[in-house]
């Protein structure tokens, strides 16, 4: 069967089991779009901005575990996905992004819509390819999917010059069955000796903590992680990226750790004597001041990426491997020994943790006559019974969502944790809804973030994606304002959003339902109504307390044990 480059692309994507591609046409990909038109197996989603395509594909990937796929044109089409690539790269999300490139003869001539996307994207992709011949196209696509989805996942970009997709040039199509890369062989199972060493440390711990990150989600290690937690009975804390990999409603779960994590999780980190890190990368937002990080702990670190181990924090027992497999090996190893931590010691440790728990560090004023953003998330949690897919943008609303929505399953909490990309939430929610049309999908956002990719409301209309948008509208770029309050004597430099659009009318203009509420009494009814409208996108513009801060907080340069609690807490606790 002889196919053109454009046809080879779709035949290859089909071989990879791709359902959707998120894209936007342009000159360099016209041949590809013509091939797209002539097939009906892969559904193309026309976004309104290429950045939206990249975040939608990313959201799809985070929710499904399958690689998200984008297709954009050369030049500005390609540069517009760079933010999406960097977002996915920081959070290790598998994506394959296809960019058109100018005709091979014109590369390097400053041709119309030419840019060196290989050079531009290099630092923010796992790998990229400039396809140099038609014969290379199918093998390159095979390699791209392989690289994106194995080892530590990440985005891979394929740049295809226009002449390689011309309809008149055809070659026999054979999709490679396997891929062999002598330079790329990610490890899978952990080193057994190291696994035993880890168990030896864990069973003699007096004040242990299990700390998991996004790797537990990406590595599909939820079940093993939960079993290990239960088997040992140790306190478990998770990062912003890991939430859901261990059930948040489990008694052993002591909440998120890090800058806006719980008091008990951070204090437990500070006092622990053995720390088991599972698919986490000791990010600065998690560790706080490194000099005072876990000063008493022996550290065991499981990660698929050797470069993540001992990058920021010295590790006593490194285990390189797929977290799911390593945890399985650990469970097997644990089953072979009767040795467990001294029950008295462990009980004393839990007693201490419960004292910290009683501080109730997330407490907020429930009697306020303004809508508290925390309450919005709590109500949404109740209404959706904790089963929704929740995406967020970046800022205070993101932290409130992470603190108050108790995720019990992995892949339900979808946010840009590493890069912190405002504008991520709406297109990501759209991507999730495409994958799970029958599930509740909510986008928790703010009036600042939502305007960064607001145009995707049109995409939601076109493809009937009835997501629910909860816009926590406080009129400020809240997290910026909070830092300015704490560190710049409340000089609110450009953190006030003047001239906001009428979000209700805006939602309606795009063909959706818009509802504004400003009274706590209306909150529950409005959220119930929004989620009851199964076939409509509902934009809830929720006017919240303008100067609420996210507490507790580890400020810059401070350690886990130096958390700033809400100064007004005595008034409502």
């Amino acid at each position, binding site marked *: 069967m002889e196919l053109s480059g454009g046809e080879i692309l779709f035949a290859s994507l089909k071989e990879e089991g791709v359902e959707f591609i998120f894209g936007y046409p342009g000159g360099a990909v016209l041949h590809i779009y013509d091939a797209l038109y002539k097939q009906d197996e892969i559904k193309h989603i026309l976004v309104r901005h290429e950045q939206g395509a990249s975040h939608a594909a990313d959201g799809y990937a985070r929710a499904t575990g399958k690689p998200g796929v984008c297709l954009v044109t050369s030049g500005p089409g390609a540069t517009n996905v760079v933010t999406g690539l960097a977002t996915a790269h920081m959070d290790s999300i598998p994506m394959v992004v296809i960019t058109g490139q100018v005709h091979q003869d014109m590369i390097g001539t400053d041709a119309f819509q030419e840019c060196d996307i290989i050079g531009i994207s290099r*630092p923010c992709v*796992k790998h990229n390819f400039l396809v140099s011949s038609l014969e290379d196209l199918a093998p390159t696509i095979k390699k791209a999917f392989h690289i994106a989805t194995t080892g530590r996942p990440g985005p891979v970009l394929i740049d295809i010059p226009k002449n390689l997709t011309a309809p008149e040039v055809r070659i026999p199509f054979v999709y490679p069955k396997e891929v062999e890369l002598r*330079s790329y062989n990610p490890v899978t199972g952990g080193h057994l000796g190291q696994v035993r060493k880890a168990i030896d440390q864990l069973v003699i711990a007096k004040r242990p903590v299990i700390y998991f990150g996004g790797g537990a989600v990406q590595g599909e290690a939820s079940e093993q992680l939960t079993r290990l937690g239960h088997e040992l009975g140790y306190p478990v804390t998770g990062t912003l990226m890991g939430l859901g990999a261990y059930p948040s409603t489990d008694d052993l779960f002591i909440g998120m750790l890090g800058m806006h994590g719980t008091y008990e999780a951070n204090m437990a980190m500070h006092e622990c004597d053995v720390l088991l890190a599972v698919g986490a990368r000791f990010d600065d937002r998690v560790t706080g001041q490194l000099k005072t990080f876990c000063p008493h702990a022996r550290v065991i670190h499981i990660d698929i990426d*050797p470069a993540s181990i*001992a990058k920021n924090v010295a590790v006593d027992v490194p285990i390189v491997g797929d977290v799911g497999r390593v945890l399985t090996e650990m469970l097997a190893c644990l089953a072979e020994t009767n040795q467990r931590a001294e029950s008295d010691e462990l009980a004393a440790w839990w007693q201490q943790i419960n004292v910290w728990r009683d501080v109730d560090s997330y407490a907020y004023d429930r009697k306020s006559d303004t809508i508290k953003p925390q309450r919005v998330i709590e109500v949404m949690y109740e209404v959706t019974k904790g089963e929704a897919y929740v995406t967020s943008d970046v800022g205070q609303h993101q932290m409130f969502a992470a603190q108050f929505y108790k995720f019990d399953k992995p892949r339900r909490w979808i946010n840009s944790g590493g890069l912190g990309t405002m504008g991520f939430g709406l297109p990501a929610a759209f991507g999730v809804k495409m994958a799970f049309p029958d599930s509740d999908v909510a986008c928790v956002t703010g009036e600042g973030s939502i305007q960064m990719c607001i145009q995707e409301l049109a995409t939601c209309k076109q493809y009937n994606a009835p997501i629910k948008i909860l816009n926590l509208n406080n009129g400020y770029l809240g997290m910026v304002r909070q830092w300015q309050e704490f560190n710049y004597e409340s000089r609110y430099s450009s953190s006030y959003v003047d001239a906001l659009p009428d979000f209700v009318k805006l939602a309606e203009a795009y063909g959706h339902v818009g509802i504004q509420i400003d009274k706590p009494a209306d909150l529950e009814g409005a959220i119930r109504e929004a989620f009851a409208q199964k076939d409509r996108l509902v934009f809830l513009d929720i006017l919240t307390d303008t100067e609420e801060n996210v507490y507790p907080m580890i400020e810059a340069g401070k350690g886990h044990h130096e958390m700033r609690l809400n100064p007004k807490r005595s008034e409502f606790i």
Partner: protein
Amino acid sequence: MRHTISILIENEAGALSRVAGLYSSRGYNIESLTVAPTDDASLSRMTIVTSGPEHVIEQITKQTNKLIEVVKVVDLTDTAHVTRELMLVKLQAVGAAREEVKRLADIFRGKIVDVTESSYVVEITGECTKLDAFLSAVGQSQILEVVRSGATGMARGEKSLKV
């Protein structure tokens, strides 16, 4: 401390820029970098001389290994090894200095590879420190131009870096 890192990398377009880009984006030092294809034309061998504290060097080797096109990475500094660098120096050679430069080149086992009435080009190979020593011996006033290849190296003994 100074480290000499040997890298075996797929001989593909853009492979060098991936390595160079990694060093610049993560703020690693490059004192010198050499690269050329090996006896196997599909592979290039790269030698990077870098410096930094031990934990940074560990990150450098790990991050370099993470690049998809990198086949193998070895920190030569960990074992006995040989490094060599090639230098061409154009020197002023008039009057008494003509004989003196010739003598110095002999002492350093250099070769004069170009001669004019007023200049020599001297070729010298050796450890980087030897080349430094030659330059200071002839003195700044005599030097017209210097070009150095950067160091290349390999481990001593039977151990070899290949696929």
